């Protein structure tokens, strides 16, 4: 026990005297988490508060065109524009402006759009009354949505589908009014029938409810998503100082001495693991503090911790175990510090990419979704999302914790085997 505590003291002293290592462990992850959350929140706010820059060219100059313009002017989704340099924009100017990135989306309502709808309705009514409509042609018009090529596909799809829904509702309204007018023409003037009016109130409406077990409203937001994701990413980056610590001992000759003293080399590794796991946990709780205290000071929502503190502790421990175990494995595989640093950082980047830290796993192709299941960062994130967003408890996250614990044991077993093999050689 004295040997272990002496080895832990040594690790602690080495760590606190390594200023660069400390900044990698604490300052950089905290800066990363603040920046990433602010950026994502800003993007969220741009969409929700300032609106997406949108330019409309209304060539229709009729009921539908005017209604689309009026509707978009009042929309929170977009920042409406129909002029460039104080003049009504033309179709060509719209293409040029979107191409130059001045607007993310442009909408061209072609001439005669309203008329086409009206004629279509008239034709439909005539056909219903048994009149010969074979001579009248069905007209079709196309509302163009011009998109800046730099806009991400998922973002564009989300915005254009909302715009499509909005324009469809207006088209339906114009059709209804045209239909009403047609009917009125067919009914004699002395018959008084109360004309039906188009109602904005829909018979079927939608309500978005999060499938969360958390009492009260926990709304997924930049803080709820980013704190767990980037905390896991930062915790796994403990691999770098851990690998550096192992490699330094190899290169500075301490390992040579360890093999000649009556204390196993694995006692040194255990001491490292204990110290780095504690550091990982401190790192984790500092990150939570950022979400609970610092980010709200910057005007961001407060991080909601969910229902299970024991679950959070368990997941943090699982994550710390997996990260430290992986660090020991990389340290055993590498033969130089540089090799260890490259291997460590690249493998964490790959694990985080396939684990859905940057792009959610559910938007990945099916093959990548299957591959993502091998990433310990994915297991950790599933656990934390369960706790922070779905309101799950300690029992629910046990499978994720066990996966991380097994990964730790696996890494350690391989590292011991490699180390023994190297020594005998």
């Amino acid at each position: 026990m004295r040997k272990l505590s002496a080895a832990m003291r040594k690790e602690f002293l080495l760590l606190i005297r390594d200023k660069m290592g400390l900044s990698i462990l604490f300052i950089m992850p905290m800066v990363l988490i603040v920046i990433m959350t602010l950026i994502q929140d800003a993007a969220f706010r741009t969409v929700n508060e300032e609106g997406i820059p949108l330019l409309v060219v209304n060539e229709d100059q009729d009921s539908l065109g005017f209604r689309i313009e009026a509707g978009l002017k009042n929309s929170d989704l977009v920042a409406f524009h129909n002029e460039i340099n104080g003049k009504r924009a033309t179709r060509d100017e719209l293409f040029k402006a979107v191409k130059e990135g001045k607007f993310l989306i442009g909408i061209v309502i072609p001439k005669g759009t309203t008329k086409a709808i009206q004629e279509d309705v008239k034709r439909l009514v005539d056909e219903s009354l048994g009149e010969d409509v074979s001579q009248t042609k069905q007209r079709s018009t196309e509302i163009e949505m011009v998109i800046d090529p730099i806009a991400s596909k998922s973002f564009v799809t989300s915005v254009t589908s909302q715009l499509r829904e909005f324009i469809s509702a207006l088209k339906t309204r114009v059709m209804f009014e045209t239909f009403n007018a047609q009917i009125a023409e067919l009914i004699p003037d002395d018959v008084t029938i109360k004309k039906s009016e188009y109602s904005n109130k829909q018979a079927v409406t939608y309500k978005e409810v999060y499938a969360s077990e958390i009492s009260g409203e926990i709304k997924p937001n930049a803080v709820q998503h980013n704190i767990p994701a980037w905390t896991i990413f930062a915790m796994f980056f403990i691999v770098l100082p851990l690998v550096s610590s192992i490699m330094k001992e190899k290169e500075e000759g301490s390992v040579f001495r360890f093999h000649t003293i009556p204390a196993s080399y694995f006692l040194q590794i255990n001491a490292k693991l204990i110290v780095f796991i504690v550091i990982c946990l401190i790192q984790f709780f500092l990150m939570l503090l950022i979400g609970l205290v610092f980010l709200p000071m910057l005007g961001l929502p407060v991080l909601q911790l969910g229902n299970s503190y024991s679950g959070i502790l368990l997941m943090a421990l699982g994550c710390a175990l997996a990260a430290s175990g992986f660090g020991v494995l990389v340290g055993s595989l590498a033969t130089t510090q540089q090799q260890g640093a490259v291997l460590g950082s690249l493998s964490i980047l790959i694990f985080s990419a396939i684990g859905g830290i940057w792009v959610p796993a559910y938007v990945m192709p099916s093959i990548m979704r299957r591959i993502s299941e091998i990433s310990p960062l994915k297991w950790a994130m599933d656990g934390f999302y369960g706790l922070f967003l779905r309101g799950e408890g300690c029992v629910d996250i046990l499978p994720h914790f066990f996966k991380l614990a097994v990964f730790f044991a696996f890494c350690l077993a391989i590292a011991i085997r490699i180390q023994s093999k190297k020594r005998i050689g």
Partner: protein
Amino acid sequence: MAMIELKDITKSYDEAEKPAVNHLSLSINKNETFGLLGPNGAGKTTTISMLCGLVQPTSGSISIKGLDLKLHMNDVKQFIGVVPQDIALYPTLTGKENLEFYGAMYGVPKVLLNNRIASWLKKFEMEKAANKSVSSYSGGMKRRINLIAGILHQPEILFLDEPTVGVDVQSRSDIMHHLKELNAEGMTIIYTSHHMEEAEHFCSDVAIINNGEIITRGNPLELIENQSDCRNLEEVFLKLTKPNFQVK
């Protein structure tokens, strides 16, 4: 009974054409100061590494105090001390912190360890520098702490791999003086070096090793006497290891 016994030891590395150590047999008695001398790549460090249990021999057997190294390595580690050729210290820790750590690893009780550290730091005139980080030390100071780290548990056998390489004359003199004291107190010392003059004065017995084989062995003065044209151990060494060497 011999303190250390190597029987027909061979060590071959996968990538090497020739074995690093080739059918080497050797016995070293208690309280000897034994010097293993040889040119670079002769097999000195491999031999010391096998004696310390760092490397397994490909064939042959090693026993220390009658204990087979293969079976009793952990027991043997209790009474051997090793001073590696490279400075095996933590540069960001102070000299004292390094010694406290290594002493604890040898299981020396805390109070006794503190006393021994203080005593050795005094002997090596390192008291003032004890609380400074090792990275600020000169080569000689690092060598002294490196040596103390290997003897804090008062081993019966001390292995030293080139303990004075790259140090100034004063530091070398200090180190050799204290090693002689330790030997006088009963410690068996096995030592490798390139400094023939140092070995000539320090060792009670030397073996000259070349291409993994012992080419001669004996008391340094006897070896010089046996080579009538040689005036010192260096000339004996050169005559035996350099085919065209002519004594001037």
